[in-house]
């Protein structure tokens, strides 16, 4: 087990992994900057002379600007709702002892077992009945429901890990339960909120199936939904296709880079203590 002592070994492992991750990513970026027609014969050639037109083409094609905006609204709206609801439910389930706590917790966890695709037909009929079809709000509520179980699971873990003295001190100072939650505890579970935000945002931003089914108006389409059409249209133009892929991946990468410190801190602070 000498290996375990050697920092060079660990550096080596991480460097190899980084190459494995970054090489395909580089291929993606490089390909997005090449003219399409020579792609098939020389997939490797470096884009020495970057062909930015691919990006211009993606942006001008269809309504990428509006797709982008819709994706932001839907992902952002869902995140706000998920965070508010998960904070509340996580607080109650994590800090209060009451009859049925375990039962409610278990019930919420069953929500993690149901992929939305499994129930698409009844969900469609139900949304229609509620007047929430072809509506961004309808989609936001569906996403919220899908992400909430995991979010409550994570938040309740964080609330449970905070010392009880905090509550009692605040109560002695005359704080109501809501003030206790908002003023004292929320700042302490911020790292957990970062985890919930990232874990929820990834599948919501990247999903194209539910928008395809639930949104019909062209002006409400999301980015991934728009991309699927785009792929068919440009099936043989790799450069444009890859440029589209890069643009679609960008916002989440930025979100991750911005939140990553909080996120790592959050995981460290207690999510994994369950």
């Amino acid at each position, binding site marked *: 087990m000498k290996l375990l002592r050697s920092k060079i070994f660990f550096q080596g492992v991480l460097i190899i992994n980084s190459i494995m991750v970054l090489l395909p990513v580089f291929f993606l970026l490089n390909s997005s900057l090449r003219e399409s027609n020579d792609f*098939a014969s020389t997939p490797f050639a470096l884009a020495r002379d970057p062909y930015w037109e691919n990006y211009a083409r993606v942006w001008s094609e269809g309504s990428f600007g509006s797709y982008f905006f819709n994706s932001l609204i839907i992902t952002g709206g869902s995140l706000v*709702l998920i965070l*508010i609801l998960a904070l509340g439910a996580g607080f109650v389930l994590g800090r209060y002892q009451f009859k049925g706590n375990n039962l409610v917790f278990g019930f919420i966890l069953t929500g993690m077992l149901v992929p939305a695709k499994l129930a*698409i*037909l009844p969900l*469609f*009929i139900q949304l*229609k009945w*509620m*007047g*929430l*079809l*072809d*509506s961004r*709000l*309808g989609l936001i*509520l569906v996403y919220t429901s899908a992400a909430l179980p995991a979010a409550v699971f994570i938040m309740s873990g964080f609330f449970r890990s905070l010392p009880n003295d905090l509550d009692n001190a605040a109560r002695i100072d005359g704080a*109501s339960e*809501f*003030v206790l939650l*908002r003023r004292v505890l929320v700042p302490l579970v911020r790292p957990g909120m970062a985890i919930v935000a990232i874990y929820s945002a990834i599948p919501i931003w990247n999903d*194209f*199936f539910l928008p*395809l*089914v639930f949104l*019909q*108006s*062209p002006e409400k389409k999301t980015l991934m939904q728009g991309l*699927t*059409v*785009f*792929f*068919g*249209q440009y*099936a*043989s133009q790799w450069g444009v296709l890859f440029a589209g892929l890069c643009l679609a991946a960008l916002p989440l990468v930025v979100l991750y880079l911005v939140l990553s410190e909080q996120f790592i801190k959050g995981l460290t602070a207690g999510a994994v203590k369950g």
Partner: protein
Amino acid sequence: MNIKRFRGLVAALFAAATVVAPGASVASADTELTFWSWRTEDKAFYESQIKLFEAKNPGISVKFTPYLNTEYNAIVSTALTAGKGPDIIQMRPYGGMANLSDAGNFLPLTTAEVPALKKLSAGILAGAQGYKDKKQYGLPYAVSALGVMYNPDILDQSGIRALPQTWAQMLKAFDKVKKAGFLPIGNAGGNGPALEQLHATVGPTFYGGTSFYNDVVAGKKTFTDKGYVASLKAVADLAKYMPANYQGIDYNTARGLFANEKAAFYIGGNYEMGYFRSLNPSINIGWFPAPKANSGAKRYVGTWADGAYAINAKTTNKAAALKFLNFLGTKEFGQALVDEIAFIPTAPYVKINDPAVKEINRWRTTLGTPFLNVVGFRFENPTSSSILQPGFQKLIVGGITPEQLAKDVQTAVASWYAPQKGKS
């Protein structure tokens, strides 16, 4: 936040959830029709045609929305079953739409409302009829024909002077092409449906074309028939002429090999021509019907009505939708469809200008035989296609024998198709 304010917020959220109406479509004098399709590649074509329609029909606008083809069935069936969906729907024919038309999702069409239907032959109309009630639910717009496409320049360079007439001659030609340093066929195994089309092209001469079709449909013969097994074996025999690593080559790459003049032949439908030309506008393409199995056999061209336009039974714009459907049935539209996408028109009054398409259509009218799986056996699950598509992928790598595959198809079809029940 105090409890009252929080409650207020939650209540407001739910109120908002139930009050905000979908789309909140503003009432206006103009009618907007929605039109769905799985043909993402034809988006530009349809949009330009819609402009022509709108210019002639002020007050009606049409919004064309293509969806990802692999998700199209899920999206359309979900929407229609829930009583929503677009005004006009592009559908795959036969079993592709029968499930939905039998459930009353489409408007039955009459020749009075859609005169273009009068001009179509009975065989073509059948593609867009209900499976149970045989009512007309769609306007078929294209016929497809299967054959062998070839690159005359490569054949020249390989020293092939005459087009093959028999199966043996064709395999000999493949060998010659190989010797000359080209790929014999671009066809590959990555895509199940493409292999099924390959079989529908070269297979009928082995099983006896239309008479076998009629016998199987009537329950007089089964899929385990010797001729049918031989037709499956023919597909397996082609494997060695496919590109190296053919099992993993996807549909677009396979077609790209022919389009980029690396492969001499491509076996499949006329609809591939548009794709070939979009990749390589200067390519020279010839076409001939699949060769006969032996000198005593007959040649066949597999054919079927390959798509139809239907109207949603629940449309609120029936008059406008019919107007648009009639536009899709006009000579001008049909002509554009033929000229720009190289489809074979359903209507006899559309002129084919493309010499290759003309040639295909000439053969089709004399040698045509129904695409067995599409025309006959896609109406209930397990369809014959759902067994054959993965089956062919196994067959070409030797993972299953033609006899076993034939037996599997028979068992699957016999499980729901009454005339075949209990037969093996």
